[in-house]
């Protein structure tokens, strides 16, 4: 029996091209450390500004309170004069109405004490 000698399977002339085993993924961006650091830096700046803003808020509050403290005496004095005028008028009316009642003390407090009380009733 005659053997037919087959053609041997051989690499192409020049050899096979190299196997592409290297991963070809898109660029990943900055490393974790860089991202973490950036976030820390931004947060740190923000917290610093927040702290500064809180200190400023405290000073704004102080400014507002002192602007009121400065004018409270003037407002109180004006209100006091008004209350005093009304009280004197009320007493004049009271003495006119009660002039026939013996032993009536005009403007006597209903409380037994020397402490001043804002009148709770007015005779119109």
């Amino acid at each position: 029996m005659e053997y037919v000698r087959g053609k041997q399977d051989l690499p192409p002339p020049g050899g096979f091209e190299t196997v592409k085993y290297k991963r070809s993924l898109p660029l990943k961006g900055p490393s974790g450390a860089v991202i973490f650091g950036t976030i820390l830096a931004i947060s740190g700046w923000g917290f610093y500004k927040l702290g500064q803003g809180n200190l400023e808020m405290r000073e704004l509050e102080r400014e507002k309170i002192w602007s009121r403290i400065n004018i409270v005496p003037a407002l109180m004095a004006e209100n006091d004069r008004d209350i005093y005028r009304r009280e004197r008028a009320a007493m004049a009316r009271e003495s006119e109405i009660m002039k026939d009642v013996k032993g009536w003390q005009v403007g006597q407090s209903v409380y037994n004490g020397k402490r001043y009380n804002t009148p709770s009733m007015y005779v119109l």
Partner: protein
Amino acid sequence: MADHREAVLNSKEYIEPSPMPKDVPHVDELGATSAPLKSASFFIGDRCKEFNDDFMLCKQGSANPGDCLKEGRKVTRCASSVINDINKHCFNQFKSHFDCLEFNNQYLFPCRNQERSLNECVAASLNLHKNIPGSPENQPQIHEKTDPIHKRIQH
């Protein structure tokens, strides 16, 4: 004011027609509304500190409105002298500042530009200075800060 009630009835509006008795010396009331008062408050506090402290001491001693009328008149005269002087010397700056306060919910921080020119004018012509007691020392007070964090966002 904590220990003060208005001398009016709550249920019915009542205007007392009788004038102030003759034995109480007359004093012109301030007649300024809230924004001008707020704008001028630190100058009132600067010039009238003694009168204010006197009056508040008197009020601490007695809550009766009849007891501190004399001190109260001094307070009112002093405060109106400040308002009148500002009106006389720095009216334009004063008006622009209290107008700004009116338009900004009476917050002081959006009106720093107007306030700065008012303060300069008042310091130059009346020698009254804005000073906030209790502010941290060795740094500019809040109204002197050139680049504050809290400022008007829209202009």
